[in-house]
């Protein structure tokens, strides 16, 4: 690992936690404030990408190995489509969230929106990190002078 940029490394380590927390806030507070799965997914991916940019690809791939990222890509779509099938098997239309709480359709809507937004978030995180891995894996680390 390259041992330079002390300030960058310290600040990055301090920032990654809050970035992930903010991503979770955007994810699960999307019903009440701006944001949702797409934005939260990107922010969560940024937490991993910034770690990779500063500490190197090998280090971030120890935390989030590529095979796991590839599974995450599909997992999000499965969660979203699965929510639709769940409502289908409960006797409602596809993606009709009223199915999850027949007595209080509003609560069902909340559950459904949380589930599909989670699916969107996981897929977007997976895609962003996978694209970053794909690009970064092709180049050796550049020295500062080369930029």
């Amino acid at each position, binding site marked *: 690992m390259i041992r330079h940029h002390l300030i960058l490394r310290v600040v990055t380590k301090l920032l990654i936690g809050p970035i992930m927390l903010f991503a979770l806030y955007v994810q699960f507070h999307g019903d009440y404030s701006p*944001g949702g799965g797409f934005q939260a997914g990107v922010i969560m991916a*940024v937490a991993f990408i910034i770690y990779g940019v500063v500490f190197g690809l090998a280090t971030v791939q120890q935390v989030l190995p590529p095979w796991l990222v590839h599974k995450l890509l599909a997992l999000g779509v499965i969660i979203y489509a699965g929510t639709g099938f769940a409502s289908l098997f409960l006797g409602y239309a596809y993606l009709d969230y009223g199915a999850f709480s027949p007595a209080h359709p509003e609560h069902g*809507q909340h559950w459904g929106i949380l589930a599909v937004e989670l699916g969107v978030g996981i897929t977007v995180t997976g895609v962003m990190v996978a694209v970053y891995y794909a690009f970064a894996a092709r180049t050796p680390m550049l020295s500062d002078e080369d930029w």
Partner: protein
Amino acid sequence: MEMLIDIVLFSMMVATALAIVRLRSLFAVVMLAGVFSLLSALLLVTLDAVDVAFTEAAVGAGISTVLMLSTLALTSRSEQPSAKAGLTPLLVVLVTGAALVYGTLDMPSFGDPNAPATTHVAPDYLERSQHEIGVPNVVTAILASYRGFDTLGETGVVFTAGIGVLLLISGLRRRRRQKGEEE
């Protein structure tokens, strides 16, 4: 006040765009493109489109900058100076710009209650979403519930794009073939 903010933001965007055209160092160009994205995110905030501004800031300024930098690392870091004088491009840009400005003359003015965008389904969604969905953020209600199928398709598009990039440039297949040859 809003007029002043708009003028400041737009002139900063124009200055950024001019700097992007003039600069030869692609690293600086990528950084300025990020700045341009942030400025347009601010513009969207003044239009009260916070969800879009959020996306623009996260995707346009954040992820694309990183991806452009990764691409730069794969290719060259400075632009080749072009030998030709740029009169034709200037003409194309001016004509396109004039056509776009001419197009805006027919558009309804900003915030017009009789504009097609605000008379069709929007009032219906605004009226129904509070008691049908019960989610304060109407954008989320429309995105995830009323337009759930669209968003499912959108997620599918993101997924497909990710798989496509993986197949094209991650070299998964090449690695597997090499492994096969070793065996």
